[in-house]
């Protein structure tokens, strides 16, 4: 294993402020390449967006970081160490649509899933765990609904419960897969507030993001990919019309690209 990764560029030294570092990550579905040799270096205590057109491999990137999608090659480090034994520093918020919401469980049960590792196999959920879960629900504005059957939640509420579950893990890095997709405006505001508070506590937030209009407002670092790396860096330097054009290609109309720093082109998403 180590001899294999030697031919890739592992010799690079991780900068001290790196939260999640990806080197030469390649993933394929059968004989279709999903992402090819992607490098990224998401900084600590910041909010990073992963953007790119449909099918660019954004979700695949997240999934292969946490091991849901096996990688063909590549090295993933967390705070300079291999991810393998550091998974507990990561909290993952999957896409809402990835689960069956008719599953027999309620809001409190779902949030407590974030504490399973802490409690262990045989440990019991005690008052302490319940109050941690309640606190996390409160942070996303869902404390009132702790007994609700999950099938009765709206899309925005489902997303908040998933975020609360990740908060319960008390991780260092939060990976979110399209947290704002299909949620109401109030939920979007609530989620972004929570994410910003995480950043202020020196946590690192990395989100796959669809809405180009809000990239500048929400994030301070961006990775732009389309199967391969296109650009990466601080928003001000990287989120430029030129880079957007090369990420989205013909899908992004030029007229809109001119003003994309402030506006939105939904036809590209």
């Amino acid at each position, binding site marked *: 294993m180590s001899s294999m990764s030697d031919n890739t560029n592992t010799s690079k030294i991780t900068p001290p402020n790196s939260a999640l570092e990806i080197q030469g990550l390649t993933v394929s579905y059968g004989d279709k390449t999903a992402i090819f040799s992607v490098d990224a270096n998401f900084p600590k205590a910041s909010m990073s967006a992963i953007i790119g057109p449909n099918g660019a491999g954004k979700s695949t990137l997240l999934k292969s970081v946490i091991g849901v999608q096996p990688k063909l090659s590549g090295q993933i480090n967390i705070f300079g160490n291999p991810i393998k034994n550091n998974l507990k520093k990561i909290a993952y918020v999957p896409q809402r649509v*990835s689960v069956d919401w008719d599953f027999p469980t309620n809001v409190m049960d779902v949030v407590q899933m974030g504490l399973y590792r802490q409690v262990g196999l045989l440990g019991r959920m005690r008052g302490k765990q319940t109050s941690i879960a309640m606190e996390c629900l409160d942070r996303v504005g869902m404390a009132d609904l702790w007994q609700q059957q999950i099938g009765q939640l709206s899309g925005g509420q489902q997303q908040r419960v998933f975020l609360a579950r990740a908060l319960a893990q008390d991780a260092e890095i939060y990976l979110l897969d399209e947290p704002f997709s299909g949620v109401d405006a109030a939920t979007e505001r609530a989620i972004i507030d929570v994410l910003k508070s995480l950043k202020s506590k020196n946590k690192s937030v990395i989100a796959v993001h669809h809405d180009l209009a809000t990239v500048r407002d929400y994030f301070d670092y961006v990775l732009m990919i389309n199967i391969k790396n296109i650009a990466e860096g601080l928003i001000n330097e990287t989120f430029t019309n030129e880079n957007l054009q090369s990420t989205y290609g013909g899908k992004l109309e030029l007229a809109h690209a001119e003003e994309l720093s402030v506006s939105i082109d939904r036809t590209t998403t």
Partner: protein
Amino acid sequence: MNTFVQAMLFQAGYNVALVTIGAILLGVAAGSAGTFLFLRKRALVSDAIAHATLPGVGIAFIIMTWLGGDGRSILGLLCGSAITALVGLIIIEWIPRRTRLPEDAAIGSVLGVFFGAGIVLLTVIQTMSSGRQAGLESFLLGSTAGMLFEDAVVIAIGGFLSILGIWIARRPLTIVAFDKDYAISMGYDIRKIDLLMMGLVLGVTVIGMKLVGLILIVAMLIIPAVTARFWSNRTDEVVIIAGFLGGLSGYMGAILSASAPSLPTGPIIVLIAILLFIVSLFLAPNRGVFSIFMQYRKTKSNIHRRQGLLTIAKGKDVVSPFTKKLLLNEGLQGLDGLTSKGKELITKIHIDENRWIAAKEIYPDKDMSKNYGIKFIEEILTMDELTNLDQYIKSQKFKSRSYDY
């Protein structure tokens, strides 16, 4: 009938008591293990591995006879069946991972191939000169006639172990069934957890072969779980209820077939489980067919009543025959226009309409729109919120009033 009462009280003889206790334990173990199978959407996999036990029974019998032992030793047969079932399971898992074939094709192939091979082996065994082969075919549909104390002990130990396994692994099993990707991100090894689940199912299948038979064991795994889902919205409760219903089916089935010796125990147990399922399907609160139908009727009437009255209030004619009939039947409209009761309700609806508009303005974060037209807003908001809302409506700030009253 007398035998029935005796059987109920475990007084109908040694064999009947053994069978009854075995059936209860098997039912509890199958019901609770089956719940995770059902939640993980793996019901058909268990059917395939149950069928894949048959060649193992045949091979074990042949080997044990060749070695000069008793070919029908229960432990030997169970080991053999567990081995071929495991091979079947591995193949089912391997085919979709390594080829482009979907899982259902793998399940179908394994079921057919293994079961066919098993039947061939049983036929060969019938022609063998040595060994006491009679009774092997009872593994297909179960048989209680020759149940020994040894068999009951195997069921008791196996049942206890699988229940213990379920209890210990309940959290990993639940999280993998609900959100596989999230479980992986927390570091759970889902292949191990799935293997454990299938191992528990395999254990139940193997111990249940003697009693229920391998063809029907999938019913014991799935039906109690599906039935229990009608009665609860919590995973833990579904597991417990499924175990209870499984045990109840086992008990009822065993005593029923004991009181009428021509009835086969295994299929009777399954039929009892199905009876419980049908009762739940129709009568369960919230999820039952009857409850869903009543809910639908109520919602439909609420919507038609409001829509109809608002239409009349605007001076237009109601077109829908259903609405017309509803308003007449409820005494809201007479032959010469609205009744006083109808007028009262219109005023109430107008107040409510304004409240909905205002609520959108002052409680934009509250997700209530799914109840609009079906419920009055006072059924959703707290007293404080309602008071607050009415003050807002009276104030100058509220501009979007659409009804005066």
